[in-house]
Structure formats: structure tokens, C-alpha cells
């Protein structure tokens, strides 16, 4: 077991990237991701990490550099947030279609406007369909573990896809937490050497990123979709082997106190831990409430979700992003469509809250549960989605 350190989560993330022995870091600083990049540049400058740190002039260039370096077979890292992700958008899609195993930490933050530097899930939802493997973490330890996990999965020969680790901005990035580092043996055991599936090499000419004429484009997209779907067994395997190495276990869909529950919160990201406190409080009052936490966002864990929701009466799905004029938050619309064909599917009540850094306390979760109960009794009108805590 590695040492246990009290450290800011951003710095721990950079230390994990160092332990993963990356070859190239290309990133542009943006709040609240800045400390990760800053610390990585220090590690490279101090000779602690033998890597190229490429200080690019924009996020668009950052992801472009990442595509190039990954294509030549270098283990590549970047991280960004919000507007930075928006600026790199077109290359994010290209990285996935070229099947380049880049790892990116996204310090989740709202998108302008109004201008906000604070945390919600608007940024990641703007690239929901970009073809990356996307996971959410809840605390600093999970960030550290998932850097190793991300490279392990991304570089697996039968996957070869980029992986995005979503960590809530400020709530995680700027928090000081006790983190258990991995030791070198654990990293060595878990993370094999990077052997790229395709590699730009003068001795073995290959074209990457050729255009696709109409006669072949649909086939290329089907192949990409199948690759993402087929990555799930490797993802599950990587989590199970992570448990063997460091003793912590992760699953695509995790549950909390779901035994005997009739109603379950569905949450994603760091406020899942807050929701657990609300579950404890409601359970102590004798209410049959549990919790479902989504860890894997893409490929979406349909089977796992159907499995854990079987027998439940109601889901209280809480989103931290808006689909303007749409069917509700992105998480709830995914869950509604996943359960649509199920017999006796639970009803879904969708709340949108925690936008751009507004706190969501255990009391808020309890209030949302109570409002969902009122809706189910018909005393309050059932709506497709409700803005929790908005001033009317």
C-alpha cells in the first residue's frame, strides 16, 4: 500500500498522472482545473516526471497536440473545464473517431452565460455524444484511482478509446482530502506498457483521419459505436482488477441502502455522497429510500440500471444540467428511455439543481424526496422536470 497523504485533490490528480508515467501533457489552464496543469508543469520542470509538457496557446491546440502525440504512441494526458472544453470541441470528437487512447480530466464547470466559474455538469453534457468513455468520480481518492483506471481501459488493445474522468470543479478540485497513493508495484501490476493499436511510424506508413465518403461513413460510425459499447466488459474488468490491487471497488452503477427501498435517488458525481446522508436521515425516519449512483456515463450501463431499478416504485433523478426546451435533465432523459420498455418501470421525477456552484445540502435532497412523494399522491402536479430551489 502506498502512503496516505493530506493533499489538495488537484495536486493528487497530477501526482497520479505522474505515477502513470505519461509521456506528453498538453493543456491550457482554466479555472477550476488550473492546479492540475500547474502542478504537472512543476513536476516536469523539476525533473520528477520525464515527459514533454507542451504549453499550448488554447484548448483547441491542446487536444490537437494530444491527438498527434497519442497517434505516435505516447501516453498522453490533458485536462480542461467548461469554456476550454467548448473550445476544444471539434477535436474531442476527432480523438474518439481516431480511437486515440487519450486521458482527460474534466473539472466540471458550468458553461457561460452568464459567466460562471462554478461547478455543475453542463460542460460534459455538451460532449455527451462525442464517443469518449466517460466516468464520474465522487471524491479525491476516486480521482487518483481513476487516472490509473482510465489509462488501463483506454489503452487496452480491444478498446483503444479516449477516456474522460469527470470530477466536480471546486467541490473536488480545491478540496484537501486524505488520499491513499498507489505504490510503484501496484501501478506496475495494474497498468501495462502502452502498445498502440495504430501508430504513426516512418517504417510502417499508415493514414489516420482520412475522409469518409458517403458510401463508407455510416459503416465507420457503426464501427465506432460498437467499439464504445464493447468497451464495457473491459471497463468492468479493469474495476474488478483495481479492487484486487488496491482493495477499492467500483461498478458502472452503484447502490446505497437499496434493500427494501421503494424510492431511490439517482445521482452522479460528488453530490452522491451528500445524497447518501439524506438517505440515512430518511431511513432513520422509517422511509423506504435508497440510492443509485451512476459512475459510468458512456457507454451507458443500460442492463445494470434496469437490474437495480427492478421492483422500485419511484426514482428521484437529480440533474446538474439543463436541456433547454427538452424532456428534462440529461440524466433523467437517459433513465426514462432506458426504462421505457420495462414492465412495472418506476416512475421518474426529475429535479434540476446544484447549477453553477449552488450548494445542495442533505436537507435539499430530503425536500426533493418529499416533493416527489407529493407528486405521486397527486397533491402536487407531476411535471417533466422541476427546478429545485428556484425563487419564484
Amino acid at each position, binding site marked *: 500500500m502506498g502512503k496516505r497523504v493530506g493533499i489538495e485533490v488537484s495536486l493528487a490528480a497530477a501526482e497520479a498522472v505522474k505515477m502513470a508515467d505519461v509521456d506528453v501533457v498538453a493543456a491550457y489552464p482554466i479555472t477550476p482545473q488550473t492546479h492540475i496543469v500547474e502542478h504537472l508543469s512543476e513536476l516536469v520542470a523539476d525533473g520528477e516526471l520525464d515527459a514533454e509538457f507542451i504549453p499550448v496557446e488554447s484548448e483547441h491546440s491542446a487536444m490537437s497536440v494530444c491527438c498527434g502525440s497519442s497517434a505516435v504512441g505516447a501516453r498522453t494526458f490533458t485536462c480542461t473545464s467548461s469554456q476550454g472544453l467548448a473550445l476544444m470541441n471539434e477535436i474531442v470528437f476527432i480523438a474518439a*473517431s*481516431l*480511437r*486515440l487512447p487519450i486521458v482527460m480530466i474534466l473539472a466540471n464547470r458550468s458553461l457561460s452565460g452568464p459567466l460562471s466559474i462554478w461547478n455543475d455538469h453542463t460542460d460534459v453534457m455538451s460532449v455527451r455524444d462525442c464517443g469518449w468513455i466517460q466516468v464520474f468520480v465522487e471524491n479525491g481518492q476516486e480521482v487518483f484511482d481513476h487516472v490509473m483506471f482510465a489509462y488501463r481501459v483506454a489503452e487496452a488493445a480491444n478498446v*483503444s478509446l479516449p477516456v474522460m474522468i469527470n470530477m466536480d470543479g471546486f467541490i473536488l478540485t480545491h478540496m484537501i482530502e486524505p488520499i491513499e497513493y498507489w505504490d510503484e508495484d501496484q501501478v506496475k501490476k495494474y497498468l501495462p506498457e502502452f502498445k498502440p*493499436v*495504430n501508430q504513426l511510424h516512418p517504417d*510502417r*506508413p*499508415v*493514414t*489516420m483521419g*482520412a475522409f*469518409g465518403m458517403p*458510401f*463508407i461513413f*455510416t*459503416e*465507420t460510425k*457503426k*464501427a465506432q459505436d*460498437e*467499439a464504445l459499447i464493447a468497451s464495457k466488459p473491459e471497463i468492468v474488468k479493469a474495476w474488478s482488477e483495481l479492487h484486487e490491487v488496491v482493495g477499492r471497488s467500483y461498478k458502472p452503477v452503484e447502490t446505497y441502502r437499496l434493500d427494501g427501498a421503494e424510492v431511490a435517488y439517482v445521482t452522479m458525481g460528488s453530490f452522491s455522497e451528500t445524497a447518501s446522508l439524506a438517505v440515512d436521515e430518511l431511513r432513520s425516519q422509517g422511509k423506504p429510500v435508497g440510492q443509485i449512483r451512476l459512475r459510468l456515463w458512456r457507454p451507458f450501463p443500460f442492463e445494470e440500471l434496469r437490474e437495480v431499478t427492478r421492483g422500485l416504485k419511484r426514482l428521484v433523478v437529480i440533474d446538474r444540467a439543463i436541456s433547454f426546451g427538452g424532456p428534462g435533465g440529461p440524466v433523467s432523459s437517459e433513465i426514462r428511455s432506458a426504462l421505457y420498455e420495462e414492465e412495472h418501470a418506476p416512475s421518474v421525477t426529475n429535479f434540476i439543481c446544484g447549477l453553477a456552484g449552488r450548494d445542495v445540502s442533505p436537507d435539499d435532497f430530503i425536500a426533493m424526496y418529499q416533493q416527489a412523494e407529493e407528486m405521486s399522491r397527486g397533491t402536487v402536479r407531476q411535471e417533466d422536470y422541476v427546478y429545485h430551489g428556484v425563487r419564484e
Partner: protein
Amino acid sequence: MAKIDEELTWQDLEVGCAVSNAGNACAYKTGDWRSLRPIVNTDHCIRCGVCYIFCPDMAIQKTADGFFEADLFYCKGCGICAQECITGCITMVQEEE
């Protein structure tokens, strides 16, 4: 590639749609972009080769008897050969004619 392009299924594609048979541009038929086709009147052709020099696609080949003709697999019908021809012996005609 064993299959011709139109028969390729999604399972046939390489990871990330990489193309590992390098130098395959010659297999790309650009001739079907064409709406006009160059016709050479050999009575007026002086076999100078200006069309050959100016063709941006190197689609014009020298024939055994010293004339020049466009390979219609590649010729896009841009008309530069007709524009540059010293004697005006190249005419662009509609494909359907």
C-alpha cells in the same frame, strides 16, 4: 483489400478507420466528378504536350503515336487543357453527349 469499397462492412474497417495500405490514392476514381469531357482533334494537334504539362491531376498521358489523351478514370473535366492548348484542338463537351 479483398473487397471492393462498396462491399465493405463496418466489421471490415481498421481501428479508427486507419488506412494501412499506403500510396493508395491511385485507386481513387476522381473521373466521376466530371461534367465536361476533353475531346482532342488530332488533325490540329501539334503534339507539343502543353496540355500534359498543365493538367493539375496528371491525368493526361502520352500515347504511342505521340498524341496526348486524358485518362478518364482521373480526369475531372476542369478544362485547363482546353484553355491552354496552343492550337485550340481540345474541346470540352458535355458528358452526356
